[in-house]
C-alpha cells in the first residue's frame, strides 16, 4: 500500500509539472487559434532567465517569477505583433511553419548566446523532500505542483470573472461576432498570446529548480503539452488540469509496475493521443 501511495504521489507531482507547462499552450490554441510550436522555446527562455538571475545575482527562481512573467509576456506580445497576427487568416500550414521557424530561430539564438551546454543551477533546497506519512515528496516538485494549481485556477478566474477574460472567450468563440459588439479582437489576441508566453516563461523559471537548462530543453515539454491538449480537447483550458493528472498518473504507474516500464513513458502519451483521437476526438474533458 505504501508503494502504491508513493507512486500515486509521483503521478500527481508529475501532473503539476505538466499542467504548468501546458496551460499557456492551451490558452494560445483556445483563444488565438494557433498551435504554437515555439511554446517550448518561450519556456526555455524563461528557464535561462531564471538560471542567470540565480547564478549572477542569487535570485531564487520563486522570487524571479514576476520578472519572468513580464519579460516573456512582453516577448509574446512583440512576437504576436510582428509575426503571429500576420498569419491568423492564413492557411494552417503557414501558421505551423511560422511558429516552427520561430522555434528553430529562438533555439539557435540561445545556442549562439549561451552555447549548447547543459547548465545546473545549484539551488540549495533542490534535493530536499518532505515526508507525508510513508510518502516522500520532493520539495521543488511540491512547490511546482502547488504553483501549477494556483496559476491554472487564477487563469480560470481571469477568463470567467473579468471583462478582459470574457472578451478573450468571446473572440475565441466568434471573432466576427466579438468585433461587432465592440471587442478589440486584435487586443484580445495579443493579450492571450502574451499571457500564454508569460505562463511558459514562469514554467521555465520553475524548471530551473529541477532540471538542466539548455537551448534544447523545450522540445520534450512541448511534446507532452500537445498530448495533454489532445486529451483535454484542443484549446480547452479547463481540461488541462485533469488531462495532466491522467497523463502523470498513467506514466507513473506504467513506469513503476510494468517490467522495464521506465522506457515506456513516451509510448504512454502517444498511445493516449492515439486513443483519444480515435475514440473521442473532441477530448476527454470537453
Amino acid at each position, binding site marked *: 500500500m505504501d*508503494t502504491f501511495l*508513493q*507512486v500515486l504521489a*509521483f503521478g500527481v*507531482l*508529475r501532473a503539476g*509539472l505538466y499542467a504548468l507547462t501546458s496551460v499557456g499552450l492551451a490558452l494560445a490554441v483556445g483563444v488565438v487559434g494557433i498551435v504554437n510550436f515555439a511554446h517550448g522555446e518561450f519556456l526555455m527562455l524563461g528557464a535561462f532567465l531564471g538560471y542567470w538571475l540565480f*547564478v549572477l545575482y542569487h535570485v531564487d527562481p520563486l522570487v524571479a517569477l514576476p520578472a519572468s512573467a513580464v519579460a516573456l509576456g512582453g516577448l509574446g506580445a512583440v512576437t504576436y505583433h510582428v509575426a503571429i497576427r500576420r498569419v491568423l487568416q492564413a492557411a494552417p500550414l503557414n501558421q505551423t511553419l511560422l511558429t516552427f521557424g520561430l522555434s528553430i530561430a529562438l533555439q539557435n539564438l540561445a*545556442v549562439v548566446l549561451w*552555447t*549548447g*551546454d*547543459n*547548465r*545546473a*543551477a*545549484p539551488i*540549495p533546497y*533542490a*534535493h*530536499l*523532500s518532505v515526508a507525508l506519512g510513508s510518502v*516522500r515528496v*520532493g*520539495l*521543488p*516538485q511540491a512547490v511546482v505542483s502547488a504553483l501549477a494549481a494556483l496559476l491554472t485556477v487564477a487563469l480560470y478566474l481571469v477568463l470567467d470573472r473579468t471583462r478582459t477574460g470574457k472578451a478573450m472567450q468571446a473572440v475565441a468563440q466568434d471573432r466576427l461576432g466579438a468585433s461587432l459588439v465592440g471587442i478589440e479582437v486584435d487586443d484580445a489576441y495579443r493579450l492571450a498570446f502574451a499571457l500564454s508566453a508569460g505562463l511558459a516563461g514562469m514554467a521555465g523559471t520553475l524548471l530551473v529548480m*529541477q*532540471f*538542466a537548462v*539548455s537551448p*534544447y*530543453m523545450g522540445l*520534450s*515539454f512541448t511534446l507532452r503539452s500537445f498530448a495533454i491538449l489532445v486529451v483535454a480537447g484542443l484549446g480547452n483550458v479547463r481540461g488541462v488540469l485533469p488531462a495532466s493528472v491522467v497523463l502523470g498518473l498513467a*506514466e*507513473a504507474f506504467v*513506469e*513503476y509496475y510494468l517490467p*522495464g*516500464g*521506465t*522506457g515506456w*513513458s*513516451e509510448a504512454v502519451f502517444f498511445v493516449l493521443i492515439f486513443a483519444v483521437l480515435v475514440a473521442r476526438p473532441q477530448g476527454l474533458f470537453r
Partner: protein
Amino acid sequence: MGSRFRPYAWAVAVVAVALSQVGAQPPTLRIGAIVPLTGPAGVSGQFMQKAYELALEEVNRTGVLGRRVELIVENDRGDPPTGAAAYVKLVTRDQVVAVIGGLQSSVSIAVAAQARQRPVLMAWTGAAAVVVEQALADADWFFHYHPWQYHNADSTYRFIRSTGARTIFLAYEDGPFGSSAVDEARAFARQYGLEIVAAEAFKTGSPDLTPLLTKARGSAADVFLFVGFDHDVIPMATQARQLGYSPKMILGSPPSWPVGFEKLPAGNYITGMALWVPSIRHPASQRFVRAYRERFREEPSSYWAPLAYTNLITVAQAIQRARSTELGALVQAMRQTEYDGPIGMRLTFKRSLYGRNQGFTRLMAFQWQNGRQVAVWPEELAEAKLAYPAPWGR
C-alpha cells in the same frame, strides 16, 4: 635613366628581392581537423579547437620538416553529411597530409565512407561505437585514440570490482548510447565476478526518474550504474537524494557533465568514468592544465581538450619521424608513437578487436568531492581515496 628615377629603381629592386624571398619560403604543411564546433557536441568541440591551437603554437615553435604547420579546422556541426563533405574538401581542395579530430560516432561513420575512397593519414580522436571500428577494420592508415565502447565497459566493471561491490542496478537510456552500453554488460560484469541484478531502460530527457529510482532502491544493489546524458544526471542526482536512495555508489558516465554540476549539493559523492580529469597526478597533465588556463583563462574541464592536444602533437611528431609526407612512411612513423602526454597514460598504437591501430584502451574513475572531480582510480593516477560507501547526506 635620370637621377630622379634612381630611388624608385632601388625601391622596386628591394621589393622584388623581398617578394622572391617570400616565394622561396617552403610551403606550409597542411593538416585538416574535423570537429563539431556547434550542435549538441559543440562544447566538447570547442575544447578541442582550443587545445589544437595550443598544440599548434608548440609545434610551430620548431616547425615540422622545416615547415610551418597550418591547421585547417572544419565544423561538422554533429551532422554526418557535413562531416563527410568536410573530409572531401580537406583532402581534395586543401590537400592536407593528415586528417585529425572527430568526436561523434555517427559523423565518424560518414567520414569513414569518404576516407576509404580517398585515404590519407587519419588520426581520429572520437567515436566509441564499434561499428566505426568495423567499418575501418582493414584500414592501416586509420589511427584511433579514444577507447572503444568495450574498453569503456571493461574499465567500468574493473573499477566497480576494485571497490569490493558485488551487485549492480543498471539504468540506461534506451537510445543507441545507452543500449550499446547494456549489450554486453552482463558478460563484462560476470567476468569481474559482479552481478547485474536488474537492467532498466529510461527515456533520456524524462523529467521524472523517481519510479526508476524507487525500483533501484528496492533492488538493494551495491552500485547504481547510470548510463544517460548530461541533462539526465541532474534529475537522477536530486531525485535520488529526495527519495533517500543511498546505494554504496552511484556511478554515472555521461559524455560530459552539466556546467555547474560541481556546485549541486546532490552531486556530492557521485562517481564518474572519464578518459581524464584535470586533477590527475601526472606532470604532463598538470603542465597542460597550467598552459591551457594561462592561454584561455578557463579550465580545460573536458577530456576532449588533452585528447585533441595529444592528437595534433603526436601527428606532428610522426611526420617529423617519417621525414616525408608519403602515406606509407607516415603510417610506419605513427606506429612508432610512444607519447607520455597530458592524458596520463602512455600512448602507443596496437591492434584492437577489429582495428589495426588503437591508442587508449582504459578509462579512469573520479568522484565529485566538495565541488571537485577527484581522480580515485587507477591507483597510479588517484589523487584521493574513493569515499565508499558514499556518505550520502553527511
